[in-house]
């Protein structure tokens, strides 16, 4: 909840829309949940805005554990955004 730096990762079409695979950001204290982080990231570029336009399509992992968008970031060091997985 501070301005500690956070690694954000993007995968699959989220990565393609954002235009990069990873970035290090320092969100303001007002960014408390994963959903808050999306709101804040979406303002960084038209690519970010496009990637997060329909967040029903977006899944998140906080420190490599699946997390609902309502989760609090807490002291997370790594947050990832991606579409539903399609391996196997």
């Amino acid at each position, binding site marked *: 909840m501070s301005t500690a730096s956070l690694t954000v990762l993007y995968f699959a079409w989220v990565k393609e829309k954002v235009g990069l695979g990873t970035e290090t950001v320092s969100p303001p204290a007002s960014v408390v949940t994963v959903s808050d982080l999306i709101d804040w990231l979406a303002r960084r570029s038209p690519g970010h805005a496009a990637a997060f336009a329909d967040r029903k399509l977006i899944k998140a992992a906080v420190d490599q554990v699946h997390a609902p968008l309502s989760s609090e970031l807490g002291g997370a060091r790594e947050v990832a955004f991606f579409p539903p*997985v*399609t391996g196997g």
Partner: protein
Amino acid sequence: MATIRVQREAFDPGAEINSFCARNSTSGGIATFIGQMRDFRGESRATGETVSAMTLEHYPGMAEGQLSELVKEASGRWPLDDTLVIHRIGSLMPGEPIVLAAVATAHRGDAFTACAFLMDWLKTRAPFWKKEATETGASWVEAREADEDQAAKWTR
């Protein structure tokens, strides 16, 4: 015991299964599942677009971590002698195996159930994404709702 491999190189399912059997020669039953890359999209070759190649992206670290979690969960639910999961990443050609899951147990019922469980959870939890190349371009495979339903039935 468990082996988990996420790898760019092609693998030989038969050879992997044989060595899995050999190192579990005292297990009465071995259930396996092989997921293969199909050369068409959708439900059938007749109606679907031809797929010429596939790229499998993954979340390094989390992919291996999730597979370990799945195997740990399965081992807690059923008495498994051994487990093997191999998942490809990178470029794949039609017909190539994408995933292999194998489970060795004393009783075959547990082997089938645990192997099905592993695949159902892998399909909805392991961070891999498929991109298919067709004549009209490349596009990301969409998640199937049926996979979510199948995974949900294992929830306790």
